[in-house]
């Protein structure tokens, strides 16, 4: 039971390939090494929450690497590591439920935006996210007045990414700051963005190169090509959220 709960549904996604940016995660290559998690946290100023809160399900990492067990010893098998982050749904269930437009869709990038300073913390979006990809600032994890150890640690905060305070929802952004930066660079050089030019922190770090990122509206890019292979599938595709993260099944 448990092991097949989360296997990505295999469907041919080419017909409903809508959107702009997409990510492909090769579960066969993912070694669960957590480099993406560390890189993402460093890039996006994700706080650490401490032992008690982390154990209580308040871990704030934007990526979590899932794994399940199937069978029993000695025929036990760990299912393929499955990094789950915001799937950047084209039709995101999290968006319409926000009463204050803190969770909205970017029309230009076709991404789910989370506008931190607009968030009032109803947490409806998180409930309605079938992927449980959203994390909530349960406390002032980034406030050096409450956590003196941050006085020095704060030095590496990324100035391109807002530091969130308590009561605000957050989630993976596909490193929108990098997308924007690359777009600006391309525009100033009067050219199109090249395939592979935008690299989110997770993909950049991944030692196994299991994460690929790029345009899915262009059939020639790496992500588009990977997304049409027979191993490609989406998490909970039957919900019709049209997620923009494609998983390539592992183990075969």
């Amino acid at each position, binding site marked *: *039971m*448990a092991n097949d709960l989360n296997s990505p549904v295999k469907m041919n996604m080419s017909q409903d390939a809508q959107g702009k940016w997409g990510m492909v995660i090769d579960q*066969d*290559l993912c*070694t*669960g*090494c*957590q*480099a993406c*998690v*560390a*890189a993402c*946290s*460093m*890039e996006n100023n994700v706080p*650490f*929450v*401490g*032992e*008690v809160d*982390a*154990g*209580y399900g308040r*871990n704030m*990492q934007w990526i*979590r*690497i899932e*794994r399940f*067990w*199937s*069978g*029993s*010893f*000695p025929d*036990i*098998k*760990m299912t393929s*590591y499955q990094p789950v982050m915001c799937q950047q749904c084209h039709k995101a269930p999290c968006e319409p439920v926000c009463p204050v437009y803190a969770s909205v869709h970017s029309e230009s990038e076709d991404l789910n935006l989370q506008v931190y300073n607009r968030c009032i913390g109803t947490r409806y979006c998180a409930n309605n996210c079938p992927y449980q990809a959203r994390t909530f600032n349960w406390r002032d994890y980034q406030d050096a007045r409450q956590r*003196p*150890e*941050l*006085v*020095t*640690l*704060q*030095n*590496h*905060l*990324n*100035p391109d990414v807002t530091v969130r305070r308590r009561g605000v929802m957050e989630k993976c952004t596909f490193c929108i700051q990098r997308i924007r930066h690359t777009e600006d660079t391309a525009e100033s050089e009067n050219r199109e963005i090249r395939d592979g030019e935008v690299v989110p*922190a997770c993909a*950049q*770090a*991944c*030692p*196994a*190169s*299991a994460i690929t990122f790029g345009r899915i509206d262009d059939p020639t890019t790496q992500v588009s090509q990977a997304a049409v292979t027979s191993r490609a599938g989406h998490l909970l595709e039957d919900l019709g959220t049209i997620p923009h993260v494609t998983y390539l099944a592992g*183990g*075969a």
Partner: protein
Amino acid sequence: MSDKISRRDFLKLAGVGAATTAVLTGCGPAARLVQREPYTKMPEYTYNGLSTYYATTCRECSAGCGLIARTYQGRAIKVEGNPNNPVNLGKTCARGQATLEGLYNPQRVRGPIKHSRGQSLYGSDNQNVESNMSWDDAIQVVADALSKNQPNEIAFLMGMAPDHLFDLITDLTKAINAPAPIRFGALGMFEARTTLMQAANDLLGQSGLPFFDIGNADLVFSFGANFLETWLSPVAQTRGYSSLRRRNPNQRGYFVQFEARMSQTGAKADEWIPITPGTEGLVALALGSLMVTASGASLPAAYSNVDVNSIANVSGVTLDTLKRLANMFAGSAHPLAISGGAALGQSNGLQTAEAVLTLNALVNNIGKDGGVFLSPLAPLADEYHRPASIREMDDFVAKLQSGSIKVLFVHGVNPLFELPKSIALRDAFKNVPQIVSFATFPDETAVQADYIFPDKHGLESWGYQKVAAGAGSSTLSGAQPVVSGVYTADGAVPQIFYDARATADVLLAAAQKAGGTLASALKFKDELEYIQSQLKGLLGNTDGFFSAAEINTFTAYFQQNGGWWKTSDDRVAPSASNALNKTFNATPAQFVGDGELYFVPFVEPVMAEAGANKPWLQEIPDPTTTVVWNSWVEINPDTAAQLGVDNDDVVLISSDAGSVEASVYKYPAIRPDTIAMPFGQGHTAYGQFAQGRGVNPFDLLSNATNEAGDLAFASMKVSIKKTGKKRQLSRLEGVIGVYENFGQQP
């Protein structure tokens, strides 16, 4: 030109342009005069809103991955992999990513400190102890120690990294005829480098770290090697694994792991064979024997003593499985067998390493793509100076114990944490009159030192590192400071917060103060000049990534590109002619103690030996158990049921060497006769994030070694007792979700 040269001018002089996608900034020799200051007083070359990128080398482990650090207004913001560095080709592991939390760690040594042994370096309020002496006095202390003691009374204990400091200290010890510096690291011990090199020497007739070409193989049998975790050069090996799976679009490489406890590496295997601990070598021999038998050839000497049936019995792998695997191995185009991890940490570890090499020799893949090579020697290296084995460390500790060492310098290693307690280093320290620690962080060893003269953090330092493993090309990774230090913003003028100084600079200055042969042998103004003097050996070398005829230009390129490496394939293909001729006794491993359970300590893959003081590494879940911030003991659910313990129950684990208490994690993928514990926690110092968290499984280990002298860390038999206490483990996984039937484990 004024003596204070601006960075921009320097760059013009050096004629360096932008290189990769990021603007990499080299830092030439003149740049030592350039201050990289924090944002409160902005240097003239930083622009608001623009980041500056520096290439450097990761110092979190000894693999020597190239980094590119993004800095912003004098602060380091993020590190990325250096795409050109042959070790990691732009990738990093979690530890590398977290290196910034070392740089900006709240607990670093504030400056040179004289303190009484055992006193904590930070108070209960986590405030660091203030520096209580000047660097001049500190240098005087070092100078006195070097000049007033007999050379053979001076000892250096260093970390595993083969870096410029090791070269410098080697030169220093040579100059005064002191014993060569001892190098040690817990990772090296877990990797059993001595054993691997000994096996290569015995069978291939050439010493060196084996290089397993996973990327070009299409079938990998790994005997305990945790090559995706912390073993040798994990980032490079993960790249190899990636290639194993996806290099050939038509045939996915197959991977079988033999080990008693499913490691993160084992989790990625297509087949995980739960083998009795200590029989890995036997299984390798059995496989070889079966292959030869199946092919109809006559058995070579290596397999003369092999009784396949009894091996099947003792290893717990059925004969059918052995035959099937032997067939698979024989039928594959590029099979590769790797040994490592707990398989080598047994009393018969060397036999295992050799048996596995023999298996490779049998399929004739030594020195071939997808087979076994020896790692290329790094530029400037005469040979690979391996870290000390436990046997050598035992001798070293005995020397300390005897009182013949008057002053001990410790740098880059935390032996009080990284050595088993049964090697009584703490006692031996009592017989050493003076201990000087160059620790950046207030670790256990620093606490036991008389002086702490903190070295700069890797991201503040100059240096190079001779890459020992992972790269196919001969590689020298270069390091340069990416920030000038950590400053406080209090007051109008920013004050340096962590007043660290490069150990090389301290030693060079002390050498001058000490005078005599030392002063004349080490006539360098500072660390950078010493590095340049070494780099001179590479001038005019044209088979490299870049070449330059003049040292300043070379150094500029070296800093800008993050090192120098050859573009050729430098893997050494040894001769395998005698590999099949060594006979094996084919004996199972001996175990210490009369407990009923095998004990397998393993390195926590994310945190490893020195990550515990970085809160992000603490909070990153262990890849297999998803536990964070603590230690646990992995017990098979059936065994747990027999013992009457459940998840989070605290149990007392005792061996002949000692006992520890840890919370139970019912781990479904471990043999019922085996328990496992991660290494990485259990610090008694090392900062607020590390101290008092979990336990150190080293407390359970004896100093038993394998034939090569490496610690037989998996050779303990332990017993478990219920304590009745309960301590909740924090895990990322929802316990009710990952198993069937709401937590009723399979």
